[in-house]
């Protein structure tokens, strides 16, 4: 077997095993009631997705996924759990057949739609024929940044990236307002109750 073929086989094997892990984790997230455990599992899910992104050569996407999915999101969910409860209340749901049918049909339509997409890494794909040559050939002279993803994000699409940053900033401010207001309120109401606390806890 040629080394190239072996490399393809091992890459495909890693892909399949990791995707299987993802499916198993997703089922476990739905089944497990302990919210701290579910948060841990979502972190694991993000880490494995990030590995898949790296395997597909989307390194910047993978870094974002690892930072946001495995880092920031887990911390936000933990903060939420700390303010609420650690156990999901078990509730008996009758099985909704209509929902299942809708989900299956939508999933089938999406899978059918992927059949029209160009193969992964296909050099004849429309995105590689029309846009990529322009950026790969002209962006070093026009922008002067060696990394083309960066020059597209920061210069060609600079306004768009600024909008994204504004959205993320607004979301962060909103979260801080929601989480911070509780702290302030507790501290104000806690000042009068401070003595009680100190009496209760030596």
């Amino acid at each position, binding site marked *: 077997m040629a080394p190239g073929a*072996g*490399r393809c086989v*091992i*890459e495909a*094997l*890693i892909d399949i*095993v*990791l995707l299987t*892990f993802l499916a*198993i*984790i997703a089922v*476990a997230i739905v089944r*497990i009631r*302990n919210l*701290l*455990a579910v*948060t*841990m*599992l979502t*972190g*694991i899910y993000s*880490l*494995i997705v*990030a*590995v898949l992104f*790296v*395997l597909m050569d989307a*390194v910047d996407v*993978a*870094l974002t996924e*690892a*930072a946001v999915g*495995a*880092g920031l999101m*887990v*911390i936000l969910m*933990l*903060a939420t*759990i*700390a*303010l609420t409860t*650690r156990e999901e209340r078990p509730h008996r749901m009758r099985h909704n057949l209509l929902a299942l049918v809708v989900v299956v049909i939508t999933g089938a339509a999406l899978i059918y739609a992927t059949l029209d997409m160009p193969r992964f890494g296909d050099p004849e794909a429309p995105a590689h024929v029309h846009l990529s040559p322009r950026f790969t050939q002209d962006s070093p002279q026009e922008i002067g940044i060696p990394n083309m993803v960066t020059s597209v994000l920061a210069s060609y699409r600079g306004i768009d990236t600024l909008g994204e940053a504004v959205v993320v900033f607004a979301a962060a401010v909103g979260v801080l307002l929601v989480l911070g207001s509780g*702290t302030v309120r*507790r*501290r104000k109401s*806690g000042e009068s109750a401070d003595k009680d606390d100190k009496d209760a806890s030596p």
Partner: protein
Amino acid sequence: MFIAVALAILVTLALALIRAFVGPTIHDRILAVNVVGTKTVLMIAVVGFIVGRPEFVDIAIVYALLNYIAIICVLRVFESGTLAVEPADEPEQGGGQG
């Protein structure tokens, strides 16, 4: 050689996942997340060598840092029950066992 290492990492990943699923205490699950994070780092590095792009090691190092921060936060929430700066403000929430 690298392929054998990759297969071994996949097996370790599976074992860590089993620990995350059945882990009776939250400690087991935190440990499982940490192990999965470490395996992620190793997997990226090994795959980098398999596909002939050793610069993936740099990415793996960034992953190691992220994993570290997340685990620290998880342990802090687990120990003090809150992410607030003064944990004494918050009444203790429940017991230790998750």
